Structures are given as structure tokens and as C-alpha cells.
């Protein structure tokens, strides 16, 4: 029943494949890097060594060049619409590569690896592969592609989470992550299948058109499908009520991976969510409810409100800083969703900006946490007592990052919140209540974030010796850079904002 394609067709297919490859260079490059790393690892067997990490960093940095090249290219589909290249995708390419680099940098600082693991080779390779996976998540335009890239990311994430094989919590985290992830992605795929059944399409642009045509027909199935899909995405962005894996995984995983997951894979999830949400769900002119069954907006609102409230409220109780930051990242997913809900260019810009700020600040915070853990060997709040005196720069930096996470000026975090709320209020009083909740919860968040400076500065250390602990020049330098960037972009945020505006144009859809 399936007749073979004619020669001419095959020619055209090959031609288009050739054409597409031209748009695919960064991914190919990264894949090569991935293999290279594995090979090198085979060649030089050693514990965590500087060479590998340097190669990784430089390799990833090199990819930036190719990504930069792509600005000149006309944005368009490739591989028969499976994959797309547009400013939006470019933004996330930069984002993920940079976060990969930072993950490596953070890893270099973490001394726990020396204790826990023998060989680091596949670690870096996995990081790179995760970068690839996330890049593809951000650019894929077909259900199949979406699924594949998500799984790629997930698998590498599972492995990285469980990277401390000797460590109970690490392995436990890996297991939980795996089970939870497998189930939710399974459900998502099932949802995909239903969509495919309804529309006979896997390309999301076509799906969008089909759904628009479909109207309110068979809305219950549609409803179920969208629920299942949201389950998958929600798990990726770690939004309530699909967040349950997050705290345990974030706590158990190696801290660099925690940082990496909490920023990068969350961002990937958002990239995916936005693309799918904006393109596949018809919302061009007609108002939402007109298409019964695809009441995504309500879903997202529930998700966002729940995340903001739950994340902030439960964080109050945490004693472990990593876990505290995990909950805070849940809350931030909520804020990011706010930008998504607005459904407009401004909203997208705000979300992207918020992602950037969160990226900067969160990596900084985790970096400091790692440095402190190196010295004190603990991530408990009580062990932070008096650190303000013993490591002043770390204390100051961490305070700045936390203030930025609360969203107080003059930090980049404040601008992020400002943009989000502006996007909400730009729609008049429609979303005011969301903004209100966001504001309230950010006041709450101040409370638990301030617990850390409170311990660091307002309380005396347990042991009385107040001589300064030296963290080494390079780490202090890096911290300072992070801190200064946080403040600088808090005062002069035009470049970031312009960049996110430039990137807020998705292929195949014109947002108003």
C-alpha cells in the first residue's frame, strides 16, 4: 500500500537534506565534540583533570562561532519541517552552550568530584550531549523531534544525576528522576499519539492549522491529549504539580548538575513549551475558549499560580541550601509561566529576559554554594553561621544573588520581574490578579532568601576562630564577575532586553 518514491522525488529529498545540513552545522559540530571527548577520555585515563574540562570549555566556546554564523542565514524549516532555525532557536543555542560552559566551570570548582568519582571523561561528554539535546528541543518543530530531543536530554540528565555512584542520595535521585521522567514522558507520548490521531499530523504548524479547522469537535479527546502533553512539559520545567521529582533530584544530584538542570533543562522545557504553545495551539485571532477542549491558558495559569505559591511557601521550611534553591527554582518556573501566559511578543521578551537573569544569578548562587561546601563540607543553613566574616567576598556575592532572586533593585532579577509584570499589566487589568499573586509571593520569598545572609552575617560562627578562609584567586574572581554582572545588568539592561526582543520572533507565527 505504500508505493516507493520515484527517483526524482529521491533526488529532491537528498537535495533538501543537503540544503538542510547547511543549517545544522552547530549541532554537527557539537556531536563531533561529544565523540572527541569520549575518545580523549579513552586515551588519557585520569581523575578529574584540567585538560578535559579545558577542552570541553574551548570546544563549547568554539560552537558559539558557528552559532554566530547562523545569524546571517535566512530563518526557515529544514529536514522537511522537522527542525527549524529562527532567532528564537538561536537565543537558546547561545543560552545552552553558555550554560554548558558554566556547568563545566562550576564543576571544576567542586571538590566533591575528587572524592566521589574516578573518571570524568564521559561526564563532560554527557554535558555536551545534553547541550545538543536541549538545542534540538528548542529548535524542533515536529512531535517526533520533540520527543527524541526530550528523551536525549532526559537520559543524559538521569546519568549525570546519578554520577556519584558511591553516593546513596545521588543514586536515589537518579532513580526517582528516571521513574518520574519515564512515566511522564510516556504519558506525553500517549498524548502525542492522540493528537496525531485527531489531526494525522506530527508537524506542529500543520497540527495548529488542523486544530483550528477541527473546532470543538471531539473536545474530550483533545482535552485528554493536551493534559497528557502538559504533563510532559510540566515535568520538564518543574512546575507544580509536576515538580515532585525536582527537590529530591536537586538535592541529590552533584551540585553543578543541580545548577545545570535548574537553569538549562528548565529553559529547554520553556523553549519547547513556548514553541508548542504558540504554534500548535491555535490562538491567532479567536479568543481562547472558542476552541473547546484546548483550554491551555487555564492550565498554565493554574500551573503558574500553584508553582509560585507552593515553591515559595515550602521553601520557608528548608534547612538545606540546595533544597531551598530547588524550591525557589520551582517558584521561578511560576514567574516564567506568567510571561508565557500573556501570549504576546512582550510576554515572550519578558520570559526570555527572565531566563537570562535567572541563568546568571542561579549559576552564581550555586557556584558560591559549592565553594562554601568545599570549605565547610555542608550545605545546611546552620553551617552558614558567621561565614560573612570568614569569607567576605563569597558572602557579599551570595547576598547579591539572593537579592536578585527576590527581585530587588538594583539587580538583574528586579528587571526580570519588572518585565514580567509589565507584560501582565500591558494587557490592562485582565491579568492583574496574577501580578498580585506574583508580588505577594515574592515578598514571601524575600523571607527565606534572607535566611542565608541572616545566618552568614547576623549570627556568630559556632567555632570562634574568625580568620578568613581563602577561596583561591580564580574562584573569587569568578564570583566577583558574576556579582558585578548581576548589578550591572540591573542598572543597564538594554543589551539583554534588546537581545531577548530580537529573539522573541518565532518562525511560522506572528505574535501580536
Amino acid at each position: 500500500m505504500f508505493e516507493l518514491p520515484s527517483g526524482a522525488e529521491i533526488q529532491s529529498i537528498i537535495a533538501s537534506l543537503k540544503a538542510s545540513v547547511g543549517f545544522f552545522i552547530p549541532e554537527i559540530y557539537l556531536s563531533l565534540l561529544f565523540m572527541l571527548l569520549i575518545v580523549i577520555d579513552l586515551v588519557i585515563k585520569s581523575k578529574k583533570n584540567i585538560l578535559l574540562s579545558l577542552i570541553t570549555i574551548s570546544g563549547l566556546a568554539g560552537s558559539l562561532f558557528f552559532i554566530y554564523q547562523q545569524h546571517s542565514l535566512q530563518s526557515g524549516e529544514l529536514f522537511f519541517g522537522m527542525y527549524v532555525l529562527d532567532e528564537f532557536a538561536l537565543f537558546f543555542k547561545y543560552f545552552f552552550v553558555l550554560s554548558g560552559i558554566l556547568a563545566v566551570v562550576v564543576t571544576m570548582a567542586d571538590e566533591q568530584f575528587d572524592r566521589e568519582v574516578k573518571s570524568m571523561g564521559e561526564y563532560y561528554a554527557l554535558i555536551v550531549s545534553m547541550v545538543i539535546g536541549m538545542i534540538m528541543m528548542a529548535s524542533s518543530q515536529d512531535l517526533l523531534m520533540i520527543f527524541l530531543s526530550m528523551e536525549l536530554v532526559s537520559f543524559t540528565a538521569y546519568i549525570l544525576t546519578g554520577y556519584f555512584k558511591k553516593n546513596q542520595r545521588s543514586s536515589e535521585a537518579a532513580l526517582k528522576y528516571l521513574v518520574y521522567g519515564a512515566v511522564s514522558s510516556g504519558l506525553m507520548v500517549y498524548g502525542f499519539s492522540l493528537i496525531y490521531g485527531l489531526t494525522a499530523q506530527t508537524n506542529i504548524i500543520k497540527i495548529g492549522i488542523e486544530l483550528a479547522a477541527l473546532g470543538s469537535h471531539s473536545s474530550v479527546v483533545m482535552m485528554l491529549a493536551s493534559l497528557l502533553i502538559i504533563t510532559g512539559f510540566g515535568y520538564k520545567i518543574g512546575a507544580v504539580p509536576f515538580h515532585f521529582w525536582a527537590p529530591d533530584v536537586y538535592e541529590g544530584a552533584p551540585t553543578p548538575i543541580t545548577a545545570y538542570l535548574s537553569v538549562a533543562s528548565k529553559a529547554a522545557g520553556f523553549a519547547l513549551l513556548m514553541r508548542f504553545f504558540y504554534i500548535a495551539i491555535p490562538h491567532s485571532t479567536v479568543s481562547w475558549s472558542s476552541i473547546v477542549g484546548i483550554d491551555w491558558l487555564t492550565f498554565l495559569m493554574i500551573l503558574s499560580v500553584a508553582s509560585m505559591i507552593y515553591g515559595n511557601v515550602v521553601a520557608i521550611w528548608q534547612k538545606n541550601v540546595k533544597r531551598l534553591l530547588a524550591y525557589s527554582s520551582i517558584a521561578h518556573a511560576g514567574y516564567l509561566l506568567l510571561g508565557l501566559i500573556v501570549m504576546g511578543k512582550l510576554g515572550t521578551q519578558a520570559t526570555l529576559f527572565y531566563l537570562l537573569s535567572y541563568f546568571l544569578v542561579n549559576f552564581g548562587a550555586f557556584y558560591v554554594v559549592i565553594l562554601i561546601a568545599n570549605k565547610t563540607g555542608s550545605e545546611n543553613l546552620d553551617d552558614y553561621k558567621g561565614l560573612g566574616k570568614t569569607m567576605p567576598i563569597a558572602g557579599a556575592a551570595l547576598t547579591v544573588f539572593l537579592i536578585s532572586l527576590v527581585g530587588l533593585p538594583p539587580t538583574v532579577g528586579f528587571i526580570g520581574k519588572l518585565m514580567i509584570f509589565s507584560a501582565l499589566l500591558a494587557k490592562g487589568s485582565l491579568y492583574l490578579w496574577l501580578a498580585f499573586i506574583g508580588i505577594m509571593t515574592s515578598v514571601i520569598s524575600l523571607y527565606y532568601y534572607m535566611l542565608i545572609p541572616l545566618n552568614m552575617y547576623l549570627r556568630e560562627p559556632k567555632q570562634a576562630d574568625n580568620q578568613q578562609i581563602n577561596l583561591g584567586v580564580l574562584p573569587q574572581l569568578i564570583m566577583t564577575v558574576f556579582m558585578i554582572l548581576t548589578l550591572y545588568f540591573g542598572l543597564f539592561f538594554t543589551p539583554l532586553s534588546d537581545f531577548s526582543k530580537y529573539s522573541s520572533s518565532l518562525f511560522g507565527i506572528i505574535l501580536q
Partner: protein
Amino acid sequence: MLSLIVFLPIIAGLIILAVPSSQKQIIRIVSLLAALGQGVLAVLIWKDYNPALPGIIASPNGSPLGSFQFVERVPWINLDLAGFGPLNIEYFIGVDGISITMVILTALVSAIGVLSSWPIQKQVKGYFILYNLLATAMMGCFVALDFFLFYVFWEVMLLPMYFLIGIWGGPNREYAAIKFFLYTLFGSVFMLLVMIGLYFSVTDPITGNHTFSLVAMATQSNYIKDAILGPDNVVWRYVAFIVLFIGFAIKVPMFPFHTWLPDAHVEAPTPISVILAGVLLKLGTYGMIRINFPLFPEVFQAGMYVIGIFGAINIIYGAFCALAQQDLKKMVAYSSISHMGYVLLGLSAGNSEGMVGALYQMFNHGTITAMLFLLVGVIYDRAHTRQIDKFGGLASYMPVYAGLVTVAWFASLGLPGLSGFISEALVFVGAFSSVTTRYIAMVSVLGIVFGAAYLLWSLQRMFLGQRKPGAAYDLVTDDDGHQHIHFHDWNGKLDLDARELTMLVPLVIITIVLGIYPMPILGMLTASINKLVEVLSPVVLSQL
């Protein structure tokens, strides 16, 4: 010039950052120099200020600067909001009659604060860095004419304050610090929403873009009719006004949002109490005058009566609470609540006398309360307690101190010839002249009596009569029969020493001079206030 006066302390802070923390004296001197520099600049500004120009709103000829002075206006952020248009944030500062008095006050108080921080030994470096940051933020709030800028300064103030109370404070400091932080942040975050809402509702008449400029916002014709805070959107305008008002009222602090104040004061070290009472509380009322009222005049009209009632509650409630306090500093703290009530009352009158009175009261309360807290600090340094009943008969042994206390106390209870009286009198004159608040004024007058009551009572218990048993000091009779007192573990001068005098005497002089001839300050106020009243008040005018 204004930029310099704003950022001088921060520059000092950066210098201090470079100084090794062992060099305490250098650190102190650097910050003192910065504070004095501010003072000098303030005097220069005061000298060149032209009191004829009103300010408040854009001047009729449509110049967007309004008739503000020392204006510095450079584009700060210029970016494109996707699907919305350009977002312009300006570094826009300037002064008019309302702010210049506060600028002078801030310079004065922060200089005195540095002096009174001299004895602090714990982490001097960190202390003065935070202190200078705070000084900059305060000054910035008073000169900012761009809402965004104002908000930034406003929020930047919180963190240093948190640490200054939290690290250098008293035994219960953590509680006080976080309480202060949460309370104030709670007030200000909603300001953020209102700020954004206003931005979307206001356009600059010149460029046609949306703007954060407070000057543009103060002109009702610049509002887009159907915008979220546009004239059509009455409900949201009311909500916004209330939200803003609460935000500022928390700073004032207005009953029932005042409970952070006593804790903060009792825990904070003396210089911080001075700053807190001398300047920070003013920010609340300043915010009302600069932002809350002129941006929502019609809501203000509707709310005058309520504001007045809250003012009266503050006056009398604060006075009563002060009457009941055993801790001297707590008493002074409540007295601030009571005195800020006069400011609220004066504002609620909505006519020139009342508002001039309120502004003048802000200035005077700044100087007088600074004096009060310094004096409390003096006795606390010596006796290590502030319990009123642990003293008695001090007047015989510390005459200079007693004399200054008497002056300060009487200034605080509004004795004619001292500045506090004129402002309170003007407030009452205004409040009584406006039909809206007449009866409220009649009630609030009771505050005069109770104010006198708690002040005189404490004066008597601490300074008059004889040493009480169980007092915080011993009576010693030296060989030639004279009696002296001796505080436990206090080796300094018994009566005021030179440093304390240098802090106090200028304040006393200012209090007296302004009490006899108020025009140096009032002269700068009147034009702006009259303008403000015009902006605010078809209704008020009809009442006169």
C-alpha cells in the same frame, strides 16, 4: 551638583572598600568627609535655590522639566518593548521646594549620624560601607523625579538598613531587622505594580512616549483616558492610590502599620535610630506629597477625611503609648509616631497652611528627634540601660546634659520659640481652617497635652528629685564634700564630651533659630506648596 551630593557617600564607600579594615580611623574620617561634603553641597544648593519657582508639575509653558531646579536629565535606559514601543527610563533628578528642605535635612542628619557612629568598634569597615550606601539611597529618593529611579533608590535603602540593624543592633536585633525588612518591602512591592500601571497610563506630552517621569505623571492631561490608571478607570485609580498610600504609610509609620518602628528603634544602634527617625520616616510622607497626592488628586480629595482621622489616631495613640513606656528609647520612638501624625493631619487639611506646616514639621521632627535619640544614646552609653526608673536627680550632676535634654524635650512638646511649635501650630491652623478636617483637628489638639504629659513626666523621673534606690549609678562624695555620681564601667567624661556637644549643639541652634524665624525653610516651601494645593484642589478651594 545634585548627582554629586547623591553619590558622594557611595564614592566614599568605594574608597573605604579599598582601605584595609584595620585602619578604622581612616575609614571613619573618609565617611565623615563625605558627609561634610554633602553638607557643603547642600548649603550651596540652598544658597542658589530660587524659592519663586514652584516645581511640582510641568510648568504651564509645557517644558517637561517643570520649574524644577538643579535638574539633571539624561536618558538612562532606552529600549524597545516588543509589541509595545519604546521604554524610556531617565536619570532625572531635580529639586523643588518640597525636596530641597529634605535634601538639607538628609545632609545634616547623615553628617551627624557619622559623628555619632564614631564609637562603633565592631566591623567598622562594613558598617561605614553600608552606612554610605544608605546615605546615597536616602538622598537619591529625595531628588529623584523619575519614578523608576525613585523606586530603585527606595528599595536600595532596605538592605543596608537590614544589616545595620541586624548586625550592630541590640539583643533582639534579628527580629527587629527582618520585621523592618518584610514590612517595608511589603509596602513597596505594590508600589512596583502601581508604577508599571502608571507607566502604561501616562504619556510624555513632548515625545508622546510613555514615561516614568513624575513631573509628567503629575499632570492629569497626560493620562490616556482608558488606560489602566487613566481617568476613566476610577476603581483602579482608587485601588492604586490606596496601595501606594499604604506603602508610604508603612514608612511613616501610620497606625496600624507602625509596629515595626518601636522594635527597630529599640534594637538599632544610636546613629541608625537617628537616621531612621530623622530621615527614613520622612520618606513616607515625602512619597505621599511627591507621588501619591499629585498623581491621584481626586482620590486624595475623597480621602482627606480618612487620612486626617489616621493622623489624629497617630497623634493621640502615639502619645498614649509613649506615656506608658518604661524604656526611654521606646518612649521617644512612640513620640515620633505621634509627631508624624501631625504631618499626616497637616497633609489631610489640603490647604496651604496645613501642608506648609506638615512639610515644616517633617524638617523639624527630623532635627528634634535626631536630638532626642542622640541624647538617649548619651545616657545609654554611660548607664547601659534605658529604663526610666533607673535614673533620678541627674540634673544636679550632669547640668549640661540636663540642660540640653530640657531644650530637646521642650522642643519636642512644641514650646514656642523652638521650631517644633511653629510647624504644629501651622498644622492645626490648616487643619482647622479646612472644613473637612475641622473636628479632627479639635480632637487632635489633645495631643498637645499628652505630649507634654509624657515628656515632662519622664523629665521629672530621670532628672529631677533625688537619686532613686537601685539607680544605674552610685553617689560618691569627694573629699571636699561635693557629691558626684559614677556610672559602672564608664570611664569617659561624666557630662557631655566634645564629640557629643559637636553633634548636639548645631541641632539645638537650628531648633532655636528656626523657632524664632522660620522663613529660611518656609520661604523655600511656600511656592511649591501653593502650587501643590492648586493641583490638588478644586474642592479645597471651594471650602475656603
